[in-house]
């Protein structure tokens, strides 16, 4: 059992808490903070750690099970499913969300598609040159 991933919750949001929990776990999987086959904290442990109603955590775990993200092994706990396709899907799903948000922002700023693509290219170059990791900020 590892608590190397942190679940950060924002109560000033319209997004239900149980969904935020799922988002955070998905993020952790996409970033390899949680690996397939790894055991999640027990529902009660996570509820205590995040100071959230155990009901809410239970709902999150149930939804993740229904999504195929986790599986519960009787008497042992809940584990991230070992599924290659899962990881890839998750990554692409999260990337899509990030890009979607990004594109909308640039549209709002009045940039054209060409300008955006150029911008993306130059930013990549800068990041690679400075040797920074993929840990960025932002939602």
């Amino acid at each position: 059992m590892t608590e190397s991933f942190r679940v950060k919750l924002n109560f000033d949001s319209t997004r239900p808490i149980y969904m935020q929990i799922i988002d955070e776990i998905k993020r952790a999987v996409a970033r390899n903070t949680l690996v397939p086959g790894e055991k999640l904290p027990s529902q009660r442990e996570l509820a205590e750690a995040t100071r959230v109603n155990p009901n809410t955590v239970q709902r999150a775990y149930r939804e993740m099970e229904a999504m195929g993200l986790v599986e519960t092994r009787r008497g042992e706990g809940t584990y991230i499913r070992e599924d290659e396709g899962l990881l890839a899907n998750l990554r692409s799903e999260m990337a899509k969300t990030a890009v979607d948000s990004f594109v909308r922002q640039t549209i709002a700023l009045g940039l054209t598609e060409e300008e955006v693509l150029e911008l993306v290219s130059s930013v990549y170059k800068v990041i690679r040159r400075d040797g920074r990791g993929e840990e960025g900020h932002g939602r």
Partner: protein
Amino acid sequence: MAAEMLVQTDNLMKRFGRTKATDGISVAIPKGIVVGLIGPNGSGKSTFLKLLAGLLRPDKGSVKINGVPVGLRTKAWVSYQPEIDHLYNWMTVEQVLEFAASLVPDWRWERADELIGFLNLEKNAKVGNLSKGMRGRLKLAVTLSRDADLFLLDEPLSGIDPPSRLRIIKSLIGGYEAGRHTMILSTHEVAETEGIFDRVIFLDEGQIKVDEDAQTLRSRYGRSIQGLFEEVYQ
């Protein structure tokens, strides 16, 4: 759904002198949820909890638990924790637990031992020698060591130091069995306990201003209960 509500009050009224501490409160609380009773000082939170605990009698209206008017019978189903320090100063932690255990039908020693351990309470320490934070922890241990239907906690975090607050909140979550236990926590410090509420009731001057599912409120306004609380009581 005709399921019997655990707590049912109907136009509950209680006054002290000329002040109406509770002024026509009608709520129906089902079994198995955590309710946050929120409001500023003097809004009637303590009075309401005492009416549920049987420490105060209604002037008008009714208050029932499991369909039974609050009285000797309902006290067996309710574990109440007041805001004040109500444990005898001269008793040791161990004596307090034994005393409390003897007075109720639903005491669980395994839970008590677990809580004493987690809350770092020393069995031989005298209550009078404990710090405020430690006394708050002990109160909680006494309250949560019962297998009651309804837990009433009046400002369990008020005046408590941060490490103790964390332990207290974790203890609340740790022992809570959703669907089986019902908790009503009164507080005017909402930020730390926000996440555990299934439902929130805002009280002001003895009346209910808001009575809703916590998540519904957050989703509707895009604001935390803490934030809404600040806005409502501006």
